[in-house]
């Protein structure tokens, strides 16, 4: 639809018009053509509109990688709403926070998560509808005031989407991200933000219609979500896998489907590195491998080259607030293995010192990003937004102060040094120490705690908790871990717990984490 208003979901609609019978999505035995995905998304969009979802309303999508979650993302956009994809590992407390914070109007969830939804959505002042995908008992549906997704769709037509009401500076998605300050913040991304990022990335990856892109990363993780956005934009094919839990299965599907693009995070490459015998799968079809979240390192580069003999390897770096900052071209990998590369097309970067003066090569300072990928801000958090988005060179524009410490070399290649706050990056996802600390402190018998990230071969960083017990308390490490499992998403649960008699403090009584490392 060439209306002169470029919206993110045109990627799907245009491909459906151009390539209606091409298989767009392969997921656990299901194969859907572009026409089928588009029609399902249209029908669900009508169902959402019919249940009170209006332009700009938030629609939370809560489930595992699968057809329903994929379709719900596009349906939210077609309903002129804002998609909020939430990790299926999220527990009820946090889901309730996300529903309340975003004031979500609608929730689309997997049946297996009905228990979490029921607890989280109880008493919500904003939710108008809950649609449950998959098998769920009638009494449970009634108890939570929900409908079956399938029955909601039965009466809707997929011929046309609802009337288009957004323009490209409207929000397309809110991606919740953990910060050092605890409460997750909603990164607001406009249609233009996301189209710009997808265009830039598909340009340097040289994506084409014949690409078959693997989606083994969660759609709730922006890197995973973009695989679908980019695949559909190009009219390519997405092979969606539920997770990377069973690498042999994922690789066998990848070989069978002739996957050409293999997006990963260091944890996945670490697992592959330990499973050398899997190198016997014929993955010569893979044209490129991408990595983000942390530098690859020589070991992973070797693994990738053995397993994907014909692949070009792209090492990349970014943050949700602007999607992607830099990429290292494959031909630079051997020359500058520790660099995360240069600015992605259509963005600019520079580094400033504490006085906001630009610094030269070799000097460590804060990375600043300028471009149309930079977020609209944090949802309803003006102060946090003002810290990150500050005036740029042109009157009225803002640029992103990333909070990441980096340096440039003489050739203008970027090197990541550290985050300015102490967010832990585990399995490529962010863990806020404060969130883990709050959960541990809530356990009976815990006096105080400090959580840090420690280097871990598999996870990048592992969560480690130092715990001081109350006098007379007899908690074991195992009990603390078990309590954390009950309260936190799996990736936040400490891998290591050390019970100590006290914690190092500053003169003002604040815990000195630097002394724990």
């Amino acid at each position, binding site marked *: 639809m060439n209306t002169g208003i470029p919206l993110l979901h045109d990627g799907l609609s245009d491909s459906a018009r151009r390539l209606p019978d091409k298989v767009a999505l392969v997921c656990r035995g299901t194969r859907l053509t572009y026409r089928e995905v588009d029609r399902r998304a249209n029908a669900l969009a009508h169902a959402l509109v019919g249940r009170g979802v209006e332009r700009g309303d938030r629609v939370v999508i809560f489930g595992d990688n699968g057809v329903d979650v994929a379709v719900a993302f596009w349906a939210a956009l077609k309903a002129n709403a804002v998609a909020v994809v939430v990790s*299926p590992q999220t527990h009820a407390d946090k889901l309730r926070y996300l529903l309340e914070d975003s004031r979500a109007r609608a929730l689309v969830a997997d049946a*297996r998560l009905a*228990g979490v939804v029921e607890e989280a959505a109880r008493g919500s002042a904003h939710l108008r509808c809950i649609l449950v995908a998959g098998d769920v008992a009638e009494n449970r549906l009634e108890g939570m005031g929900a409908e079956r997704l399938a029955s909601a769709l039965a009466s809707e037509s997929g011929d046309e989407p609802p009337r288009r009401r957004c323009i490209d500076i409207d929000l397309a998605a809110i991606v919740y991200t953990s910060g050092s300050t605890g409460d997750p913040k909603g990164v607001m991304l406009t249609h233009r933000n996301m189209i710009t990022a997808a265009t830039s990335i598909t340009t340097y990856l040289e994506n084409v219609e014949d690409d078959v892109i693997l989606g083994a990363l969660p759609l709730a993780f922006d890197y995973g979500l973009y695989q679908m956005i980019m695949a559909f934009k190009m009219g390519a094919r997405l092979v969606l896998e*539920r997770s990377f*839990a069973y*690498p*042999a299965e994922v690789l066998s599907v990848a070989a069978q489907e002739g996957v050409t693009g293999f997006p990963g995070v260091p944890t996945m490459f670490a*697992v592959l590195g330990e499973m050398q015998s899997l190198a016997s799968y014929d993955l010569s079809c893979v044209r490129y491998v991408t990595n983000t979240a942390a530098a690859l390192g020589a070991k992973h580069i070797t693994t990738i080259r053995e397993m994907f003999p014909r692949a070009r390897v792209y090492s990349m770096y970014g943050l949700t607030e602007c999607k992607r900052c830099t990429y290292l071209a494959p031909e630079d990998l051997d020359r500058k293995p520790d660099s995360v590369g240069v600015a992605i097309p259509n963005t600019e970067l520079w580094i400033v010192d504490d006085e906001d003066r630009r610094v030269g090569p070799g000097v460590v300072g804060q990375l600043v990003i300028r471009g149309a990928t930079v977020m609209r801000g944090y949802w309803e958090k003006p102060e946090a937004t003002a810290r990150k988005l500050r005036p740029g060179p042109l009157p009225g524009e803002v640029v992103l102060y990333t909070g990441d410490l980096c340096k440039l070399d003489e050739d203008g290649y970027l090197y990541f040094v550290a985050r300015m706050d102490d967010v832990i990056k585990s399995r490529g996802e962010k863990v806020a120490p404060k969130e883990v600390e709050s959960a541990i402190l809530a356990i009976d018998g815990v006096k105080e705690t400090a959580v840090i990230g420690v280097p871990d071969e598999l996870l990048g960083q592992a969560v480690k908790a130092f715990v001081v017990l109350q006098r007379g308390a007899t908690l074991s490490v195992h009990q603390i871990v*078990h309590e954390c499992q009950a309260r936190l998403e*799996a990736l936040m649960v400490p891998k290591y717990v050390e019970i100590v008699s006290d914690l190092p403090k500053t003169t003002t009584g604040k815990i000195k984490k630097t002394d724990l490392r």
Partner: protein
Amino acid sequence: METTREVIRRFITTNFYVADPAQLGDDDSLLDSGVVDSTGVLELLVFLEQEFGIHVEDRDILPQNLDSIARLEAFIARARRSAA
């Protein structure tokens, strides 16, 4: 003495978070019910090695072998038979 199935169940319900162990059926998918995630699978492998002395080949790390209590039990039985 505990049966193999009981040993597996005990490991899963004490090492992973299972809200209500009575609700976890022997045939329920551990992935679908959210009990095990990708690092959880690695922990299962260590358990099979330590508890039963079974080294799982990379190619056998598949849901059909590992993704429920019943499948784990059957996989252990097969591994023991082929070792015997």
